């Protein structure tokens, strides 16, 4: 029930959002990686063992849904993926159907996101 030492990957094209989430997980003593889009996130996932991915849905090059599908194509269970959305045409249920643990809506409840990660890891 702790995030100490856990590998967290933050994926968002908005650097300020990435900074907030990085600070939030760093405060919990997790090891944080970040990427501005799904494609770069996949590169990190290929190199590092990640426990938990927090990804925005709307991003250039490869979006959050695309990233989720690719992650689940490799492993049906791991890592856990939480998605963040502002206004998504994709319903939460559909995202969960594709293998997301939960969908968070902006503005993000950082406490709830940390709690989810803690409960899963």
């Amino acid at each position, binding site marked *: 029930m702790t995030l100490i030492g856990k590998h967290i990957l933050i994926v968002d094209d908005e650097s300020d959002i990435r900074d907030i989430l990085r600070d939030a997980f760093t405060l919990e003593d997790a090891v944080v990686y970040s990427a501005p889009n799904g494609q770069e996130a996949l590169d990190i996932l290929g190199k590092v063992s990640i426990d938990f991915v927090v990804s925005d849905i709307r991003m*250039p090059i490869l979006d959050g849904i695309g990233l989720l599908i690719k992650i689940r194509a490799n492993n049906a269970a791991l890592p856990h993926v939480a998605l963040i959305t502002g206004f998504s045409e994709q319903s939460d249920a559909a995202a969960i159907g594709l293998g997301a643990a939960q969908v968070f809506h902006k*503005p993000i409840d950082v*406490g709830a996101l940390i709690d989810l990660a803690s409960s899963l890891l």
Partner: protein
Amino acid sequence: MGESMSTNQENPQPVKKSRAHRIYYALAAFDILTIAASVFLSHNILVIYKMSVMENRIWVDRSVRLDEIAQAAGAINAPGNDIFDSHDVKLESERIVSASAKFEKLMNEEASLTKTEDNQATQSELRNSYSKLATSVQTMQDEARVIFGFFQKGDTTSAGRRMATMDRRYAAVNSELSRLRGYFAISQTASLEREARSAADLAKFEGPFSAVILLIIILVSIYGHWIGKRTDAANEAIEAGRAQISASAKMASLGIMAAGIAHEINNPMAIISGRAEMLVRYAQKGKLTEAGIAETAAVIQKTCKRVAAIISGLRKFARDGEQDPIEAVSAKQIIEESLAFCNERIKNAGIALHIQDDCPDAMFAGRPVQVSQVMVNLLNNAVDAISTLPNPWIRIIVEENSDFLTFRFRDCGGGIPDAIAEKLLTPFFTTKEVGKGTGLGLSMSLGMVNRQGGKLYLNRAQAHTEFVMELPKSNGASLSTDSQKAA
């Protein structure tokens, strides 16, 4: 909007239209009838005129012939007198024979014309008179021969006595000629009166015709006035419709932007909210530092400014802008302001955006709101066109020459087919599916750019799809722009 649409549907336009057609056809038929009758009337008057001319010519010919007859009669009379000077019986006899032959020839010609005389009474009178003339001339001729007989015998005294008889015979001839002239005058007058009566009969129609023509003119004037009013009303309705469609197009354009703006505002809100929550979390863990607070406050402040800029831009964009004064505008700034409305959309479509600004300090003279609207419209069109293509990209290129500032909006599309390109800037032309496009964006953009002294066109020379907007360069200082903005 819904109410006004239903009102338009209840407007009984088709009924009015069909009535207008009937009136038009009735007036046209009436017009044709009147013209046909006028042509018929003119034709008849012309026939009467021709007949009158012919009649006059005949009577002139006959008068001339009667004069010739009179001359011939005089020529028959002359030898009877001239013999007293010439004493040449043979010569004077020959003159009488010659004159007599001419007289008979003329009389025969005249007799044939007398037969064609319509009026039987006149024909009889003329024949009688000619007969008397012929007899008188013959008697005169006989008398001349008697005188010649006395001369042959050398009895000039008896010949001189017969001169008085000869003169009486010639007076009788002249008397018949005068009577004939009188008949001619009466006959000519009678025929001219007949034609005048025919003309007068036709002239009776002049009044009714004039009245009908006047009526047609009045009806056509009333119809014209009515049509004019209807046209004005229709034009007003078209103008209202155009304004409504223009407003709808703008609403649609605003709708597309609203989605983008929602994201643009939602992210800053997430940042502010996230930062605030992090302050609490740091405090809970006892790790809140002054530097951390300052940093968070700076991020929040910066993010609030970002939202304020979006809202300010939106307020400007939603305005009409048509009445705005032409002012000096920074090319760099207008691109940034325009992208605030569609950046998110471009990003979400996975489109790479490149800006190639070779003249970052360049200014143009224009209406910033409208130029921004045109840019957003061109960028939105590009997004619609290329979002499904592999590795999509949009490039905005700014170039400067002596008079114009050129903005090129190039995308990875392979150009626009000629058939479509020709219609591209016409109102209501769209290749987008029903409900996705009004076909007004480019035509409205063209109008806006033209009214600012600029040009907007598709660059067909470029292999990729490229729209070019040229705006007059500004030599005004940017300070004036700022002061106008502040105002």
